[in-house]
């Protein structure tokens, strides 16, 4: 889910008008609302929420293919199940756990939207300070110095991550899931998995369900129009009764978001396919290229947006008003994900398949079009959906480079959340719900395409 959806979902759950405060103040004691926002705990919880799936995907993908023979041998020699886990499984999983942890650290280190909305000024991070220095205070000198610090840290992190990835590729005997999969036998195992699954589902679904529910809750206007459930927040999205200068028609925001996402998909897939192909085919320096193409993943979008302000503000590169800079920035953010989606399958293609096609007279272009492309097509689709969802939810760079007339859905949500009043709050939740639904459809499509495409995410 985009961070700009996660933050309103947590506001709907823990905010002063959120469901928890409503329940506490209405059902128990008439106390002032609990101050749950603007605390470190809410930020941590939101980050755990949207990074949970990253860790789950990386670790479970590795774990589900671990050879069970080592564990079985230890069990036969008398080792207890816990000892097998701590002395065999866990050490084998360590590279996957470390890689996932580092990736989460990188994502959280460069997190922006959640902290801006949930953190408040007291909990500002490097990202938020760069944004404030550049966009609010116009202190570009300070913003540049902070960005420099941010770039340094993220480069160090990406070097460590690349090395861990290399260790992850070390010869660990992996087996297909048809061999490693085992059924739950005892009641204890079944209960453990059921409780775990239920807790996870509640934790992951509760904020999103409440976001949808709250988006339909209408504010109490008068005695004749009491608080209830309805579509008012959605129907009011296109209204600007006070004539606010910062008003963004949501239909325009949705159109802009979809337009930028489409261009991003086209750019990111084309460039990602070429980059992945070149990385695999490079006789030397394939690892170096891999690391270079991974670099934008570790650079925060805010830093990137600020870099665009500095780099493209002087002739002959004065592109500040250029609308194409927005999908270009989105493409840069999505490119490492697209490449990482395609690379594993491209590496799996055996040379003799291509050689057989060549022997039958196919030229290199035809070999690529009729051998390589059909094999990696699923991964390309996964990459395309990644690019689409990244573009839809991109907030950090867009907030710095987009002109008001080209505002996207995340910008519209942020502006609505920043304005006082229940109407704006309800509209922000309604727009977040729309963005969540579009992202969910894209993710569902990706999951269908992912089946059989062994991507690295």
């Amino acid at each position, binding site marked *: 889910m985009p961070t700009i959806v996660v933050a309103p979902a947590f506001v709907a759950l823990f905010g002063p008008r959120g469901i928890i405060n409503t329940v506490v103040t209405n059902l128990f004691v008439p106390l002032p609302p609990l101050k749950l926002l603007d605390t470190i705990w809410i930020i941590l919880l939101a980050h755990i929420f949207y990074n949970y799936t990253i860790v789950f995907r990386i670790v479970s993908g590795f774990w589900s293919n671990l050879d069970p023979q080592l564990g079985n041998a230890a069990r036969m020699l008398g080792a207890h199940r816990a000892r097998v886990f701590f002395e065999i499984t866990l050490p084998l999983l360590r590279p996957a756990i470390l890689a996932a942890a580092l990736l989460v650290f990188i994502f959280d280190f460069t997190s922006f939207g959640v902290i801006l909305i949930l953190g408040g000024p007291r909990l500002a991070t490097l990202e938020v300070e760069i944004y404030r220095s550049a966009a609010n205070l116009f202190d570009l000198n300070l913003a540049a110095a902070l960005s*420099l610090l941010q770039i340094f840290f993220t480069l160090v992190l990406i070097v460590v991550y690349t090395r861990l990835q290399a260790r992850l590729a070390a010869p660990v005997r992996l087996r297909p899931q048809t061999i490693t999969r085992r059924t739950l036998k005892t009641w204890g195992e079944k209960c453990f998995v059921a409780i775990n699954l239920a807790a996870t589902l509640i934790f992951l679904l509760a904020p999103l369900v409440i976001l949808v529910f709250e988006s339909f809750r209408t504010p109490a206007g008068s005695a004749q129009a009491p608080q209830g459930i309805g579509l008012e927040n959605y129907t009011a999205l296109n209204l600007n009764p006070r004539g606010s200068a910062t008003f963004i028609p949501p239909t325009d925001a949705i159109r802009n978001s979809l337009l930028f996402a489409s261009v991003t998909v086209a750019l990111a897939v084309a460039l990602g396919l*070429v*980059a992945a192909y*070149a990385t695999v085919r490079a006789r030397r320096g394939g690892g170096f290229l891999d690391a270079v193409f991974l670099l934008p993943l570790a650079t925060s979008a805010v830093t990137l947006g600020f870099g665009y302000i500095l*780099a493209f503000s002087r002739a002959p590169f004065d592109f500040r008003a250029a609308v194409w800079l927005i999908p270009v*920035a989105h493409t840069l953010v999505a490119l490492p994900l697209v490449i990482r989606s395609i690379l594993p399958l491209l590496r799996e293609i055996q040379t003799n398949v291509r050689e057989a096609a060549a*022997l039958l*007279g196919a030229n290199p272009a035809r070999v690529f079009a009729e051998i390589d492309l059909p094999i990696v097509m699923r991964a390309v689709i996964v990459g395309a959906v990644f690019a689409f969802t990244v573009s839809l939810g991109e907030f950090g760079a867009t907030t710095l480079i987009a002109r008001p007339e080209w505002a996207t859905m995340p910008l519209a949500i942020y502006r609505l959340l920043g304005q006082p009043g229940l109407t704006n709050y309800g509209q922000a939740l309604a727009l977040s719900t729309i963005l969540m639904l579009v992202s969910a459809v894209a993710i569902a499509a990706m999951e269908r395409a992912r089946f059989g495409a062994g991507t690295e995410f």
Partner: protein
Amino acid sequence: MRPISKLQPPTSKLQSPTSNFQLPTSNFQFPTSKLQFLVLLLPLAFLAVFYFFPLAAILTYSFFPNGTLDVSGVRQVFSDINFAGKRSSAR
């Protein structure tokens, strides 16, 4: 008996049966270094213009904001260990 040094290996006069045979793969080549270079150029050029150039602009602006060396921004960040907290509370 001939000395050993003059002995010829028995296969010396044999010709490889495939010596005059050319595989029909002659028209197929994996991307050569030139082609690889050209193919690589697209995403690398994209990265150079839209990633490394903006980062270089940040680096330059950090130390030369007005064309001359000025590290006040960097000094401001490093001289105040509680930078974020103090600035935020002041706002």
